[in-house]
């Protein structure tokens, strides 16, 4: 399809002659957060994938703009009856940017490295089900599992599962070498990173010959960079309160999409009063989600009722499960033994969405007699230390960025302290089910359990506030996986 479009474009340009203005073939894309290193297989920050995933690195599978799994470096696959043996047929004639060939040996190396003892892969648990990887011939990869893993193909499409070469794996952090349509060119830390088109790419050549990522954290600086044309696009603009001013301007396209970032106010279920489900439900009843979206996000964002986003396959809208009902909340609190409410602290990261949401939350909980004391907590360092690792908190608020990460509630040591064997069992079954429909039904069941038990107050999914030059085409509207996939991006005449 895009080859056809390319051929058509060629004909049109050819006919109209050299006098016609050539569309630009470079892009400057703004990001609020600079990646910490460029290797998504050794560190978690989403900004890494937003630069390199699909552009520099590719996986055996990929996740498309609708969140669906598609073949990539694996052309096709077969799954054994019992769901334990995956046989992949790998694409031929693929090479890494440094000339090394991609074959089953590099695929085996990548998977063994990710699941190995010394692995620091942030999603190592995805590979836990893999029992062995074999490469019988260069284009065949056989992955044997110790138990069925219904999400394996999806996980193989994640940034953390991209294919790397043994010869360049060690230096990918600063000099990434992948099989993607763009090769790494230059990184001026703190300022910009440049990718250029890779001429030896196996697939359709991208329309862009060069892409520059610029890192601008300050919202006002983002605005002036867009206005002055220094930046062509901000796929994830940082300040909802300034967004409306771009919606009315003709030279910009503004698209409000979904991300995978679920903003939830987690409670410490290990200690009172949050170990009482009635208390957690009462707090949820006291929350008007739309008011949080309006007050903290200038109206951008979509309320959620569980740890799942509308992007995700198998999403169930559960915002009605516990609806806004302050009267009922007070009654339930009294029933739980807190007729006069209680006082608790909430550890709040410095990010705007968290700070503002917690202030609205504070006001709403005050209505039912619950006094929240906001404790600013530096994210990620202090938050990870206090909340995630030491569970030293009453309540907290944070956006969970990983797609389809509902399984965190099944982890025994996770910070919510959610203890529900039925939930753990449901997640286990879902992960072992290879039939999509049956699996999504199980994830639906898991969503309902969370909506009922409220280990965290489910608030809203963060919007993807895209702003770009109206002549740009092909940027993703939603973000089913943290990325700025540039393969289909082009300039309109």
């Amino acid at each position: 399809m895009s080859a056809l479009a390319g051929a058509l474009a060629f004909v049109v340009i050819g006919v109209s002659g050299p006098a016609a203005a050539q569309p630009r073939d470079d892009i400057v894309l703004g990001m609020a957060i600079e990646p910490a290193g460029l290797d998504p297989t050794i560190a978690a920050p989403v900004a890494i994938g937003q630069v390199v995933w699909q552009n520099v690195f590719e996986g055996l599978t990929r996740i498309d703009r609708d969140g669906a799994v598609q073949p990539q470096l694996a052309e096709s696959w077969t799954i054994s009856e019992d769901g334990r043996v995956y046989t992949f047929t790998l694409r031929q004639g693929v090479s890494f940017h440094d000339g090394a060939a991609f074959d089953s040996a590099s695929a085996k190396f990548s998977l063994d490295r990710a699941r190995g003892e010394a692995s620091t892969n942030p999603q190592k648990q995805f590979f836990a089900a893999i029992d062995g990887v074999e490469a019988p011939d260069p284009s065949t990869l056989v992955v044997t599992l110790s138990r069925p893993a219904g999400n394996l193909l999806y996980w193989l499409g994640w940034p953390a599962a991209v294919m790397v070469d043994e010869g360049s794996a060690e230096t990918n952090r600063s000099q990434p070498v992948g099989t993607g349509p763009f090769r790494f060119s230059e990184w001026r830390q703190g300022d910009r990173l440049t990718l250029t088109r890779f001429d030896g790419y196996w697939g359709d050549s991208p329309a862009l010959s060069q892409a520059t990522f610029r890192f601008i954290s300050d919202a006002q600086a983002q605005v002036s960079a867009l206005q002055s044309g220094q930046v062509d696009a901000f796929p994830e603009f940082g300040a909802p309160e300034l967004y409306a001013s771009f919606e009315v301007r003709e030279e910009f396209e503004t698209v409000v999409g979904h991300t995978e970032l679920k903003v939830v106010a987690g409670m410490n279920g290990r200690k009172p009063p949050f170990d009482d489900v009635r208390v957690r439900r009462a707090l949820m009843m006291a929350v008007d989600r739309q008011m949080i979206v309006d007050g903290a996000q200038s109206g951008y964002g979509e309320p959620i009722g569980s740890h799942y986003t509308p992007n995700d396959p198998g999403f169930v809208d559960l915002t009605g499960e516990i609806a806004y009902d302050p009267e009922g909340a007070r009654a339930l609190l009294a029933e739980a033994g807190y007729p006069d409410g209680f006082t608790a602290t909430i550890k709040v990261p410095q990010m705007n969405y968290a700070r503002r949401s917690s202030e609205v939350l504070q006001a709403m909980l005050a209505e039912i007699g619950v006094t929240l004391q906001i404790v600013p907590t530096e994210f990620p360092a202090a938050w990870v230390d206090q909340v995630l690792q030491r569970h030293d908190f009453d309540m907290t608020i944070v956006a969970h960025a990983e797609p389809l990460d509902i399984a965190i509630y099944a982890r025994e040591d996770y910070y919510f302290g959610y203890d529900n064997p039925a939930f753990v069992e449901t997640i286990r079954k879902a992960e072992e089910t290879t039939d999509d429909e049956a699996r999504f039904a199980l994830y639906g069941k898991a969503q309902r359990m969370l909506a009922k038990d409220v280990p965290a107050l489910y608030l809203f999914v963060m919007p993807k506030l895209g702003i770009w030059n109206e002549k740009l085409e092909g940027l993703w509207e939603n973000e089913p996986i943290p990325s700025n996939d540039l393969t289909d991006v082009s300039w309109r005449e």
Partner: protein
Amino acid sequence: MSEREAGGSLARLLLGRFTGLVATLFAVTAVVFLVMQVLPGDPAAVMLGTSAQPDTLAALRAELGLDRPAVMRYGAWLAGLVTGDLGTSTTYGVPVAGLMADRLAVTLPLAGLAILLSLAVSLPLAVAAAGRRGSLVDAGVSLFAQAGVALPNFWIGLLLILFFATVWPILPSGGFPGWDAGLLPAASALVLPAIALALPQAAILTRVARSALLDTLQEDFIRSARAKGISRRRALWRHALPNALIPVVTILGLQLSFLVAGAILVENVFALPGMGQLAYQALMQRDFAVLQNVVLFFAAIVIVVNFLVDLSYLAFDPRVRA
């Protein structure tokens, strides 16, 4: 005292000061390292994020060398400092020395430009105000000084951005093209941030210089000079100003640490890849390899500048030498 003895005591004085400088820097390394140890947060945990598992965390800590005892890591840092190896950034995965050099190429010209600007604004204003004490000019200069001290530099930066990005777009209002893009594009990117940094400093310097000038104008030697027929203007510029420079230089030295602190916000507002921004990022990421060297660098600047200010007293005021 003979000429030679004076020279010898000067050398001893310099040597003493220099030894003090090195000892202070050494003490700073210990303090910086200790602070890093008590700072909550673990670089490995930051890198692995919210889904970190115990086994990957342990593997990453080992890879980054964080599992070694603190004393060993401190020793390795000091040894590296002596040999010029500042280590590798845990987040970026590149040598710290190169990172810092890139940032200095932005921050040093920025700070230099800010100092020049602040002197170029404050000295003429101070002379004008002191020359006509109580006049409208004096009142105007006082107002400027008041406002300049009160306004934070990042806010001045925001105003400059708003004005130059929309109303009068003759100067770049953010970003840095790099020195290889050419002297003019690079230097013009530094103008607005330098103004934002310089204004509060110029305000303080104006105040200090004005009152120092007024003090000096009361001195006998000015009266003698005036009695000999030197113009008021000449007396101000040639005789009073050099004598008023000592407090100005002292304040300038003290201000340098504020300049560095202010640079963090200003670099952020203008999206400049400078040292301030590097320090902030390293702190957020708990990139200790970068952070300890950057903090040491900032401390060294303040210490060395104070040392130079001391030396400048010797140059400006012969009485100190006695």
